[in-house]
């Protein structure tokens, strides 16, 4: 699992893009077909998105940023709408996330996190900050008290895309009763005890379904721990 982890945008350290498969110019070319940014039809692969983000970080590349926006803004809007925000508030939240993407692009580290995990943490923290008006305590992987982690191996970096496919398959393969709870947690912003109330289930049932779901997801990832 090492390859997929550490998505916290404020905390990652280390070298930049180790994977070069296509140049940013090639990505641009590949996306000529998607001229109108913002309609969400330009579904890009994580590798492409990763390169766009690196180009924003290294070159302040506004074209790359526009293409990144074209992919993620409509999905983030859907995410905030699912959480109960109005269309106007969702638009505002997406703007805030995208401003942070621009400003904090250098904190994205391919190989240590996927673009989607990175952007999820930004979206989640914006909601906590702007809607709930709370601070978000995040763990520090560089905490001196934390056991020293091994640096990423090349194998771990290359495996990120594969792990992501496995994760997506594992989510799709969850039994309905487990998938429902996972969706409520992420999309409706409900805690496990609120989910229990919402579904009229005993707390213990919800807890055991969460445990089963998480162990399935980990098994799907080929747990390396």
């Amino acid at each position, binding site marked *: 699992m090492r390859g997929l982890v550490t998505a916290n945008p404020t905390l990652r350290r280390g070298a930049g893009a180790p994977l070069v498969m296509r140049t940013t110019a090639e990505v641009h070319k590949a996306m000529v077909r998607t001229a109108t940014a913002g309609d969400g039809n330009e579904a890009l692969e994580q590798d492409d998105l990763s390169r766009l983000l690196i180009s924003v970080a290294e070159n302040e590349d506004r074209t790359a940023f526009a293409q990144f926006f074209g992919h993620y803004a409509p999905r983030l809007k859907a995410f905030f709408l699912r959480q109960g925000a109005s269309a106007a508030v969702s638009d505002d939240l997406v703007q805030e996330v995208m401003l942070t993407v621009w400003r904090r692009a250098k904190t994205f580290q391919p190989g240590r996190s996927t673009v989607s995990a990175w952007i999820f943490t930004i979206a989640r923290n914006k909601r906590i900050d702007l809607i709930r008006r709370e601070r978000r305590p995040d763990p520090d992987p560089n905490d001196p*008290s934390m056991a020293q982690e091994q640096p990423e191996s090349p194998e771990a970096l290359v495996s990120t895309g594969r792990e992501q496919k496995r994760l997506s398959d594992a989510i799709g393969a969850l039994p309905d009763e487990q998938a429902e709870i996972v969706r409520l947690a992420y999309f409706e912003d409900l805690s496990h005890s609120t989910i229990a109330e919402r579904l009229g289930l005993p707390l213990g049932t919800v807890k055991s379904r969460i445990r089963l779901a998480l162990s399935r997801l980990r098994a799907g990832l080929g747990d390396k721990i």
Partner: protein
Amino acid sequence: MTPVHHVAPEMLLDYASGSMPEPMALLVASHASLCSRCAEQICELEAVGGELIDSLKPEAMAEGALNGLLARIGKDGYEVEPFPEQVSPVWVDPRVPSPLHSYIPKSLDNLDWVRRAEGIEQARLLNDFAGFDTRLFRLAPDVTVPRHTHEGEEATLVLTGGFSDADGHYVRGDVAMADPSVTHRPIADPGEPCINLAVTTGSLRLPGLVGQLIKPFVKL
């Protein structure tokens, strides 16, 4: 050393998905700073969140949203920022996990500890956060906390020293969970004081006549 007692999976989910209130999130983040296993599981759950966002049917943004953004970025404080440097805090205490740092005004030794009972001191954090008691406790070596139960859930993260109750022995990084079904009488380890972060929903109760009588003195 990897902790033995972790936060429960459903708490990791609440934390990673973002639904957990700040006081308990502070405890989970502090534990994860001392526990690479839980830190990694949180990252996995963030990857799940990313996958779920990717799976959503896109919703069209408002007209002009991108142009509005393009007009803002690159100036007026919206530059691409350099990679964040480690900020040097005004005080350093290696016993305090990073997430907890900004919630504590001074190092542990200089905190305004308030005596609650013989050998038991506390310092409140996150005072304004309704519905939760967020406290640091400092237990003198070998002190016994009076037998008590809880109206809500209580999570305790050990920062220094250790303590034992009927369920186990807890040292730095370990999390002890208690709920209304638990009545316990924790005993601090000998040696150094046991400093722990305790987050409680609802107050502690001391059952029985003896508990009622001593409550004014040991109400935790």
